[in-house]
């Protein structure tokens, strides 16, 4: 997993509430057994017209947001299905940081596992960033995970909170499984105390 410390990037606004993971990556793309290559299917039904062409009226298709790596979204982003493919699609498309007033639980967990930082700011702060992204050309934002702050070059600053462990994993780009396996002795002891409750399969 790629560590993330200080990230500066162009901001794309998708300022709608309750964007669900069915929308972020529609089901027809979940049949792939690879972990990569989902970016072209991101928000497929919104980005493409029914004949498969790019819909120029959809915000992410606008040239001013080309290469954006920060997505600013509405509340409860990533609700619904647990599909991690949603995060793979966002990441493959180029997003490293997502900013919203709130995220759905499973989605937020999935982001951490893929080195994607979810930043929770107030409705007002998110609204302001979305407004600037829409109005200011080449609008960029800097997200500093060391200081837990975001700022732009136009005087906006905001602080966010994140739990220490998540922050640590993202800063270091840690392999979670490797860390857990360091506790082999404790896991084995737990198993010795607790027989499997399922009778044999």
């Amino acid at each position, binding site marked *: 997993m790629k560590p993330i410390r200080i990230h500066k990037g162009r901001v794309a606004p998708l300022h*709608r*509430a*309750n964007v*669900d993971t*069915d*929308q972020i990556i*529609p*089901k*027809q793309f*979940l*049949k*792939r*057994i*690879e*972990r990569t290559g989902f970016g072209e299917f991101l928000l497929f*039904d919104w980005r493409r017209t*029914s004949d498969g062409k790019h819909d120029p009226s959809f915000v992410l298709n606008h040239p001013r947001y080309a290469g954006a790596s920060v997505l600013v979204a509405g*509340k*409860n982003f990533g*609700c*619904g*299905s*647990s*599909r*991690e*493919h949603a*995060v793979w699609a966002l990441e493959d498309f180029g997003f490293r940081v997502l900013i919203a007033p*709130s995220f*759905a*639980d*499973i989605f937020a*967990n*999935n982001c951490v*596992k*893929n080195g994607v930082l979810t930043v929770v700011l107030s409705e007002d702060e998110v609204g302001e960033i979305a407004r600037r992204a829409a109005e200011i050309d080449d609008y960029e934002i800097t997200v500093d995970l060391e200081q837990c702050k975001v700022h732009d070059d136009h005087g906006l600053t905001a602080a966010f909170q994140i*739990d*220490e*462990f998540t922050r*640590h994993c993202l800063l270091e780009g840690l392999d*979670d*499984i490797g*860390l*857990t*396996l360091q*506790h082999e002795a*404790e*896991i084995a002891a*737990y*198993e010795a105390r*607790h027989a*499997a*409750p*399922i*009778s*044999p*399969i």
Partner: protein
Amino acid sequence: MAEKFTLFDKIWNEHVVCVPAGRLPLLYIDLHLVHEVTSPQAFEGLRVAGRRVRQPERTVATVDHNIPTEPRGTPIKDPIAARQIGALQQNCRDFGVPLFDMDSSEQGIVHVIGPELGLTQPGMTIVCGDSHTSTHGAFGALAFGIGTSEVEHVLATQCLHQRKPKSMRIDVRGRLGEGVSAKDLALGVIGQIGIDGATGHVIEYTGEAVRGLSMEGRMTLCNMSIEAGARAAMIAPDETTFDYMKGRRFVPRDWDEAVVRWRALASDPGAAYDATVEIDASLLAPFVTWGTNPGMIAPVDGRIPEVSDLKADRPAVERMLEYMGLEPGTRIEDISVDRVFIGSCTNSRLEDLRAAARVAKGHRVAPKVRAMVVPGSQAVKHAAEQEGLHKIFLDSGFEWRESGCSMCLGMNPDILQPGERCASTSNRNFEGRQGRGGRTHLVSPMMAAAAAIAGHFTDIRNWRFR
């Protein structure tokens, strides 16, 4: 005075393996359910790292999401779906994980077969790479959905790092009226607290109306809790739970001792919750969703609300109505349907099919409606056929299919065409969920069957049963 614990606290505390310094608690997972869609990348991760599945005997796999519901033995036409199913078969062989495959008499939707086989038990921690894992909480288990990275983590370590969620008690006072089902209760809860009303929380349902539900009803209620954003949902085990479980294939051999342990799981009287919500069961009606999230509900004898009467912001509601092809103020009973889907892990168990068949009996599906019934598992299908339910459905003009997720998410060929309107017993009415441009209305099995026959939504409380 002794400390008081909730059901959730008790299960949580029992499963903390250790709390490594500066890290989240490491939680032991008793049962890991696996399906074809969210697992291939996890197994691949194990292979790349040279890791094994730590506890294959606590891991159970099935195929459900993308399999066709045509008669078994028909070759799978979609090569990508076939490849994904093939990958699961290969992975289960390579890593020694038991698989209830396509041709198994125990195949079914993962959240239907877990309880049915007695794998789901009170007091357990259960995970699956699927958000509706909350279903299993109906047995007093702590069950929640995880992503594919976490699937890999559990396969490798049988543990997960978890921050302890907050607790929320939802107390349902009074009794459900005639024609008002567990599905309506679930929709009523989401309508009241909102689709992110329980984010970060584990719900415990209590109260007379919840105690009065069958296990099937409790599963429906816990299943839908993720649609309110809940991390998990649970109901304390009681006689109803034990009666349902007794004699099932994988329940503990030391049954009587197990029941004693399970009884002690109930929340201590006076235990504290981080939040409490009260629901008055007598105010609930058979509901129909009219928007593109499960919180947008209206009673069947009501109307689509005026935009100004809603808390949600105006452009979002207008967008929903446009997508759904509906106008504010329309009577719900005036909305006609093209398709009906009875199935999904929310409502595809025997009791659901019985309820739908009771409505369908002696009636005919409206000529322009295509209606399908998809049992949740092979065992449900078999049991329904033993009772002759399939005959009732077929005689009334419903299709009777093989088990799987089917049109709940339309990964297989069962999908809506653009603009088609569907009365569905599933759990999500998101844009495009059942097919691009498809319009989904969530309802109970009885309401779905009635809509199929009437050709439009109709109040089940006025139904002429035959």
